[in-house]
C-alpha cells in the first residue's frame, strides 16, 4: 500500500460515489425513465472505474454495449409500454423485507472482504496495464470455445427477441 492519497484515488472515490448514488437512484426513483437515466450514470461510473483499472477496452465495450445499446433498448421498451404508473405501484409489498435482506447481504459481503487478507501488490507500479493484444490473444486462443458459444447465444437471443416482439398472426 502506498502512503498518502494519490489523484487516482481521489478520482476513484468521486466515481464510486457517483456510481453508488446513481445506483440508489435506480432502485428508488419514482419514475421509470428516471431510473433508466440514473442507470446510465451508474454505468458511466463503472466505465470510469474500468478506466482507472487500466482496462480501456472493457470500459469502451461497456460504453458501447451498455451505454448506447442496452439503455436505448430499455428506454425504447419504456416508450412502447408508455409506463406512467403511480410511484407506489413501482414497489412491491415486501419492500421492508427486501431492504433488510439487501442490508444483510451487504453486511455479509463486507464482513467477508474485511476478514480476508488480500495479497495486494506493494506499489501501483507493480500493476501492469493489460494490453488489447493480450485480451485478444486470450479470447481467441484459450477462450475460443466460450467465445463461439457466446456468439451462438447472441444470435439465438436475437431470433428469440424478434419472435417475442413480432405480433402473432392469430392474435386478433
Amino acid at each position, binding site marked *: 500500500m502506498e502512503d498518502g492519497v494519490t489523484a487516482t484515488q481521489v478520482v476513484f472515490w468521486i466515481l464510486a460515489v457517483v456510481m453508488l448514488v446513481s445506483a440508489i437512484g435506480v432502485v428508488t426513483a419514482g419514475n421509470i425513465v428516471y431510473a433508466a437515466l440514473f442507470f446510465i450514470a451508474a454505468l458511466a461510473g463503472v466505465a470510469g472505474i474500468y478506466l482507472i483499472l487500466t482496462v480501456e477496452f472493457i470500459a469502451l465495450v461497456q460504453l458501447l454495449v451498455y451505454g448506447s445499446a442496452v439503455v436505448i433498448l430499455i428506454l425504447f421498451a419504456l416508450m*412502447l*409500454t*408508455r409506463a406512467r404508473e403511480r410511484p407506489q405501484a413501482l414497489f412491491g409489498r415486501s419492500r421492508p423485507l427486501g431492504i433488510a435482506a439487501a442490508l444483510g447481504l451487504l453486511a455479509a459481503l463486507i464482513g467477508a472482504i474485511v476478514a480476508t487478507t488480500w495479497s495486494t501488490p506493494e506499489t501501483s507500479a507493480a500493476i501492469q496495464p493489460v494490453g488489447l493484444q493480450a485480451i485478444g490473444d486470450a479470447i481467441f486462443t484459450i477462450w475460443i470455445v466460450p467465445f463461439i458459444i457466446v456468439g451462438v447465444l447472441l444470435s439465438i437471443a436475437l431470433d428469440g427477441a424478434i419472435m417475442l416482439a413480432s405480433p402473432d398472426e392469430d392474435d*386478433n
Partner: protein
Amino acid sequence: MVQRTFEGEVLTEPVVVEREFETVDMNINIGPQHPATHGVFRMVLTVDGEIVKDAIPYIGYMHRGGEKLSENLDYRGALGYQDRTDYLAAFNSEWVYVNAVERLAGVEIPERAEYVRLILAEFNRLLSHFMFMGAFGTDVGYFGTAFTWTFKERERIQDLFEAVCGDRIMYNYFRVGGLAWDPHETFVEDSHWVLDQVETGIGDVDELMTDNEVFVARCRDVGVMSAEDAISFGVTGPMLRASGVPFDLRVDEPYSIYDRFHWEIPVGERGDVYDRYLVRLEEMRQSVTILRQALDQMPTSGPIMPERMPARLRPEPGEIYMRQENPRGEYGIYMVSDGTDQPWRVKMRSPCFHNLSSLKPQVIGSYLADAVVALGSIDIVLCEVDR
C-alpha cells in the same frame, strides 16, 4: 355495420382495432396545423407504433357557405365566389359556373371567347398540377426542391394570368356570355413562350422525381385503390384514371370545343400513389399538347361578348347540372332558376370532397408516413371540400 376493405371483401365487423389496451395505441392529430396537411384538414390517426389502426377525418374548418352566398346574389354577382372554392384552379371553377348560367339562360358565346377560356383553363390545370407536384414532393420528403422547382414554373403561368386579367389568384375574368375584356395583344406569343418554359419545367420535375429510387420506394403500392372502389366512392379526375378507369369529362361528356383537339388520356394500372403522380405528370404533357393546338387555331380577332346581352339575367324557370373536368376531377354546378334574377338553388359538386372520402380505407393498416403520402396524392383543396 358493413364495411369493406379496399380489396373488396366485405367484413361483418368494422375495421377497428381492438381497443383493449389503450395505452399502446396513440392518437395523433395530423392537422389542422400540421405541416403535412394541405389547408386546414384534420385527421386523427390511431397509431400502434408506426402502423395506422384507425383514421378519422374532420373537415369543415373552411366552410363559408359559398353555395348559400351564391344564391343571394344575382347570376353575375356570384361569379367572384367561384374563384374562391377551388383557388388553385380558379379559371376552371369560373368556367363551370358561367357555363351553367349560359346554358340555363341560353346565351351563345363567341368563338374567340371560347378559345381564350379553354386556353386559360388548361393553363390553370398546368398550374394546379405543378402545385400538386411541389406539395406532394414535400410530403414525400424532398426538402423544398420539388416545391421551388415547380413554383418557378407556376410563377410564369401566374405572370401570364396577371397580364391577361390583372390578378394572380382570384381572377374573376370570365363573364356570363364571354370575357371581361380582350386579352392583351401579345397573349398568343406570351403563351407560346410560357408553354416552352413550362415544358422544360415538366421535364425537370420528371427527372427529379419519377425515376428517383427513394421516390419510387415511397410511392409504389401505397394507398392502392381498385377501379371498383374508386367508382363506388365517387372518385373522379386523375385519381380515378390512376385506378384504371379512362373517364374524362372533356371526352365523355364533351363541353366547349374540346372535340376539336387531339390528345390522349393517361390511365394508370395499379391505382397506387405512384400511378396518381404519373397520371398527373402525363396529363400536364397532354395539356401542353392541347394548348399548342388551341393557340394555333385561335381566331386572332373577333368579339369576346355576344352582340346583345340583357342588363339583368332572368333565366326561365328550370334547372341545369353542368359538370366539367377540373384538375382534381368532376366539378359540377347544379342550378335551379325560379325566373328571378337570383338562382333559387346553387349546389357545387366538388371533386375533392368525394376524393377525400376514399382516404380512410387507403390509410388504415399502412404506415404513418404512407398516410401522409396518400393524403398528399389526393391533392385536396380544403376550400373546395368545405365550400
